[in-house]
């Protein structure tokens, strides 16, 4: 390794009201290195990266680029220092082309007015030439004239990477880049990352997927509670050791579960068709059944109809055609409340959009779909005492880390938000659980907890429909795996036949 680190953080501290997000964090990134940044949600990874990228100003400490202290007051300073960032949620404009997106903000202009601000003509050709050069140099296959909206997620990500390189970045920060990718796409990304580092680019790779870290990183740094707890080399580390560093205690990663003992059919879906908001068919003639005491996993890359399927089943989205049978009732056109009252628990995909009211207290969120029933209400009058008591009990039982049941849901960490939803949905008698991305963005410790809860629901005879884009989650929890691609279930496999490779290929639509 070279002598001077390309990027160094010394004693970075950032305080927010009531919390120290980063506490005297040191970090070094060497030239041509992939540094994996591990940490639970809320550990301070994003805060640290935002300081490195100039979005936050550190309260203490300094940042050095190539050995020189740099003052980062805005992302412009970071870009000038050669730092580029690829956010988890892409910052691309769908209706513009790749080239337009890449040149956005650093437009080259030509023509007589080129010297004047805002008035020159865009020099698209020059940009396109440069983008082609970059994509060739780094083997990032990309057509500058394609519209972003027409591109798959993996290619959009490449556009984001080129966007950073176009601005002459030689330090890249990738924030959870694999969250939206299929296993195959992720492998392609790792190849690209290696390619970049070979040519002198240095990468900070933020993730919470331990397997990836071991596969791709040169060095691993672990954050916990805002403090840097240490670094490790992949050769010396195991998933278990990394998880322990992240959480601060031993974590059982392997879900311990017994053989399923399926009972009666609880959910029977036949030829279901559901449309997107724009009226396109999202779920096409899907049929399956889920029995009591088993977990049916729906695998698939995001955006292949899983969300619409779950919303259709829970009454949130109208059913175009087909048939849903819940136990002995036809629930095809049930309203959400009827579905809930039939004994269906639903962990929604987007907990902030559907699952919680951010401004409400935890106690109120814990009765969000039962507030009108006794004992929480007497006639039309809410019984706040019972609601609060229920909140206290569930917060204790489900280990929601909060100073008070009156704290707003919005101020909880991702994992604790999810625990609130899990507590609410599991604390009432149900016969069907629809869990959509139950551990997305949740820390390792909470994942373990939520997985165990799902298993114990299964074991108590609940039928579970588990929708997840995390293949590992499906493979470790499900008893049967159904793979969705392009709105259809392309295959249903017993867990014994569901290997990573096979399911991965099914998810990519390349096997039927």
């Amino acid at each position: 390794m070279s002598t001077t680190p390309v990027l160094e953080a010394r004693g970075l501290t950032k305080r927010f009201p009531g919390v120290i997000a980063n506490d005297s964090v040191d970090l070094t990134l060497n030239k041509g290195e992939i540094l994996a940044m591990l940490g639970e949600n809320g550990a301070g990874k994003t805060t640290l990266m935002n300081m490195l990228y100039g979005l936050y100003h550190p309260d203490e400490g300094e940042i050095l680029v190539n050995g020189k202290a740099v003052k980062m007051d805005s992302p412009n300073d970071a870009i000038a220092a050669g730092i580029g960032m690829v956010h988890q949620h892409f910052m691309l404009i769908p209706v513009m082309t790749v080239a337009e997106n890449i040149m956005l903000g650093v437009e080259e202009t030509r023509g007589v007015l080129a010297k004047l601000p805002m008035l020159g003509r865009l020099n698209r050709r020059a940009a396109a030439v440069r983008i082609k050069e970059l994509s060739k140099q780094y083997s990032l296959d990309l057509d500058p004239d394609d519209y972003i909206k027409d591109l798959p997620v993996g290619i959009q990500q490449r556009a984001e990477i080129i966007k950073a390189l176009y601005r002459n970045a030689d330090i890249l920060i990738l924030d959870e880049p694999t969250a939206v990718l299929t296993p195959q796409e992720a492998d392609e990304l790792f190849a690209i990352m290696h390619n970049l580092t070979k040519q002198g680019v240095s990468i900070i790779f933020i993730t919470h997927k331990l397997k990836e870290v071991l596969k791709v990183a040169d060095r691993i740094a672990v954050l916990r509670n805002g403090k840097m707890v240490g670094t490790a080399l992949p050769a010396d580390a195991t998933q278990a050791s990394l998880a322990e560093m992240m959480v601060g205690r031993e974590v059982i990663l392997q879900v311990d579960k017994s053989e399923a003992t399926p009972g009666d059919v609880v959910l029977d879906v036949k030829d279901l068709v559901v449309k997107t908001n724009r009226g396109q068919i999202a779920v096409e003639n899907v049929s399956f059944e889920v029995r009591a005491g088993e977990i049916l996993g729906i695998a698939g890359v995001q955006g292949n109809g899983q969300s619409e399927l779950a919303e259709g089943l829970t009454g949130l989205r109208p059913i175009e055609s087909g048939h849903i049978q819940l136990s002995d009732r036809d629930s095809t056109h049930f309203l959400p409340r009827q579905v809930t009252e039939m004994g269906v628990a639903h962990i929604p995909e987007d907990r902030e959009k559907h699952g919680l009211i951010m401004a409400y207290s935890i106690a109120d969120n814990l009765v969000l779909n039962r507030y009108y029933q006794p004992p929480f209400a007497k006639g039309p009058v809410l019984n706040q005492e019972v609601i609060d008591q229920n909140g206290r009990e569930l917060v204790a039982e489900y280990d929601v880390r909060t100073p008070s049941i009156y704290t707003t849901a919005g101020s909880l960490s991702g994992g604790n938000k999810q625990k609130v939803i899990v507590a609410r949905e599991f604390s009432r008698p149900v016969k069907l659980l629809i869990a959509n991305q139950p551990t997305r963005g949740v820390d390792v410790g909470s994942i373990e907890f939520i997985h165990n809860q799902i298993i114990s629901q299964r074991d108590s005879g609940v039928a579970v429909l588990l929708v997840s884009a995390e293949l590992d989650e499906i493979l470790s929890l499900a008893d049967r795996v159904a793979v969705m691609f392009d709105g259809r279930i392309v295959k249903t496999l017993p867990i014994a036949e569901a290997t990573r490779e096979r399911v991965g290929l099914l998810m990519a639509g390349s096997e039927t």
Partner: protein
Amino acid sequence: MASSTPNEVESKSFRERILRPLAVPLLAVFTSLVIGALIIVFTAENPAIGLDKLGKGYWGMFEGAFLKRNGILNTLVVTSPLILTGLAVAIPFHAGLFNIGAEGQFIMGAFTAVLAGIYLDLPPVIHPIVVMLAGFAGGALWGLIPGLLRAYLGAHEVINTIMMNFIAFALVSFAVRGPFLDPNTSSVQTYPIQKTAELVRISGRFHIGIFVTLLVASVVYYFLYKTTWGFSLRTTGHNPNAAKYAGIRPRQQFVLSLVLAGGLAGLAGSLEVQGLTHVVTTGIRAGYGFDAIGVSLLALNNPLAIIPAAFIFGALNIGGDFLQIRAGLSVHIVSILQAFILLFVAAPSIVRYLYRLKVSGGVAEGAPVTRGWGG
């Protein structure tokens, strides 16, 4: 990012619960008065005259709104409709809608109340109550229409409530000039309501309507925060998607919120007729429905906080006359003051910066003010 762990404890102190939320609105009022003072001083012929006018005007404002004979009573008289129309803005805010139609709902309520007051023959006590219900119904109808349009056609309530205002002005104006014109008087007005329908006046113009209003405000508070209905409505306002998930039907809540809002604004119109005018004229446009937006914002849409907020606006309204009476200043200074108050309440960071206030930790649950224009 790193989620901040809130540091408040379960039992919040008086300081946290009462003083904190009050700081910004009160400082907003104070700052606006200071700015108004500067405007008065620096627009005068010379600073000495300006100071003289300022002293006379501000003292007059204070005396007129509180101290003078009938001062406080006059203030209460205008506070009453401001509370009701303020509630008519606040309730839809809680459901995530922005009701700009309180003025039209007020006028329709006044009109239906006048009809019930003229044409129904009922004994005292019963008659005023029936007239109030008629006013509520008239306003509620005027809220129902944009509510249905919003819920089932997705037509934006801001546009539609504004349009409904114009329709109400025109409709009442037509009715007052045409079929219901009282030929026994020289002015363009309806027949007066029957004596049995009037509200008792206690002193001067001070009538018992304010007691009805205070009762209603308490009921609305109870409704919003203590009942399942209110829970459904507020949930819809905070997050219609989550509301749907929770089994609430947002469309129903949209309609309900605007119907209630219209009804309360209509009740305000009714009380105004029963207690003060006894007739409807073409000049019924009092602007309460528009001031109400400010009242509701100042109160952060809390039904009980609307009472003092309406009182502040009422005092400015009544006291503001004395800027002109005592100092010859334009009554529009008061409009400027109110505008500044709203500016500071809507942009609390200005006030926090001026007075170095800290942002309070994430407990207080206000209505989703900033979502108003979302749609």
